[in-house]
């Protein structure tokens, strides 16, 4: 479903993601945990390109969301001037070595030392734009399939609850007004908030806001839902209702990526738990593996600190 390939993210000089790769499978429930500042939100936001990775690629099924990263395509590297000049001098220096051996060495060197330049010649550019043409998808199209839920709900303050749910389907001409409102009312019925359809978000409690935010995303019929600490801004007594809704979604087979500090939820719902630390995936595994038998001392330390 989502494939994150070796992404790096720099904010100025600060490297926040440091070579992260992961595959989210269809129907999988992945929970991301980790200390504050470890890059969990950034990683999640890279998945729908709210943050653009500095290097690396993000794929949704067969669609490329980011610009192609030449370092991930060996055949592209081979077309660069840097590669051919390195190959030429390497051949002269070590005439005995086989071409394959040299190829592996040079590609490793180019990747390690970031040797590719902006302009690497016609064949190289052509290869990159070929990938772009074949796989790149308009980000706005891709996002229709990916719902996102934010820590601070981000309901549209200038619209009623109903308008919040119908805005995107209507603006993107996916539904008629009647259809969109019917779907919206069904979704509101599902969370027991039909009577709030014409209220403005400021009149809702935190838990109600977050549940509306979740069904607003569902109104687009997404294939995957991304959650960034959906319960962190809530009063404790409202956490439960939001987690219940998320569990329901999980039971229906929704593909979900959830950044959270709710370890109970992770244990109960996750197929896989990813522990992030300093911009890297430090450890991943089933909830049982991570919570009961962490291998990485950082994981253990983190779990001890929060439990």
């Amino acid at each position: 479903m989502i494939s994150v390939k070796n992404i790096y993210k720099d904010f100025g000089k600060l490297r926040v993601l440091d070579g992260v790769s992961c595959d989210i499978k269809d129907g999988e429930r992945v929970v991301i945990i980790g200390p504050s500042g470890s890059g969990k939100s950034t990683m999640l936001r890279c998945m729908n390109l709210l943050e653009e990775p500095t290097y690396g690629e993000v794929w949704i099924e067969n669609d490329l969301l980011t610009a192609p990263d030449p370092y991930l395509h060996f055949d592209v590297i081979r077309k660069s001037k840097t590669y051919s000049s390195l190959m030429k001098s390497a051949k002269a220096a070590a005439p005995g070595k086989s071409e394959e051996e040299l190829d592996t060495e040079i590609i490793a060197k180019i990747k390690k030392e970031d040797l590719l330049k902006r302009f690497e010649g016609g064949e190289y550019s052509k290869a990159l734009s070929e990938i772009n043409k074949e796989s790149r998808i308009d980000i706005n199209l891709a996002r229709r399939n990916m719902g996102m839920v934010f820590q601070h709900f981000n309901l549209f303050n200038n619209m009623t609850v109903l308008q919040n749910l119908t805005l995107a389907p209507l603006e993107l001409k996916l539904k008629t007004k009647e259809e969109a409102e019917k779907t919206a009312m069904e979704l509101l019925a599902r969370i027991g908030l039909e009577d709030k359809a014409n209220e403005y978000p400021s009149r809702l409690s935190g838990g109600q806001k977050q549940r509306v935010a979740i069904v607003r995303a569902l109104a687009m019929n997404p294939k995957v839902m991304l959650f960034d600490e959906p319960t962190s801004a809530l009063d404790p007594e409202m956490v439960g209702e939001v987690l219940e809704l998320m569990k329901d979604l999980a039971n229906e087979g929704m593909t979900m990526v959830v950044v959270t500090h709710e370890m109970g939820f992770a244990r109960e719902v996750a197929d896989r738990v990813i522990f992030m630390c300093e911009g890297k995936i430090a450890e991943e595994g089933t909830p049982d593996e991570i919570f009961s038998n962490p291998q990485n001392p950082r994981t253990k330390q983190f779990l001890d600190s929060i439990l």
Partner: protein
Amino acid sequence: MDFLSKIIELFSTEKYMDSIWEGLKLTLTISILAALLGLVLGVIVALVGMAKDSWAMKLPKLLCKIYITIIRGTPMALQLFIMAYVIFAIRGFPLVITATIAFGVNSGAYVAENIRAGILSVDIGQTEAGRALGLTGATTMAKIVIPQAIKNVIPAIGNELIALIKETSIVSMIGMYDLTMAAKIIGSGNNMASYIVPMAVVALFYLAIVYLLTFGIKLIEKRLRAGDKR
């Protein structure tokens, strides 16, 4: 009772009233035209200034920044003099146009800043939520950000308009016959030989204009707020 008789004298002397109407006409003409120019300029400059950083936008963005810095960093009177005596120092060039451009260009910088501040006052999360649903940047702006920004922008732009109208009084410094100049001439020795009455009357005219404008802005604000009962 001298004061009262002077007031009666001013309002009953056709020559004086003509002066006031002429001055009022010029003040309003410059104010309205400059406000329109300032609004258009302000919107453009705000949009350019807030556009995403990119290679093609580098120069326009820099120019907008310089424009705002210079306009906000120098006195209005000096800007007016530069327009009148340097840029449009062409014999026969209509002063009304010179003044309109000077005030419009000045106002544009402030309007741009007001718009920018208004848009930035809307939580970035609103934009992110819109974009995450697959809406384009333009749709998100139009349907989500601007409707929320406008509540902050309208009063600020209203204040800017009020400041602009009052500031036009310095056109008398380049020899134009506006409301303030009318008061000065009516009060001079050849005419009433007393400044207090014409100045007070003209002050009332300014007050009336500003009051009407304030009232209009309040009305718009109320409408906007009624639009989403919060």
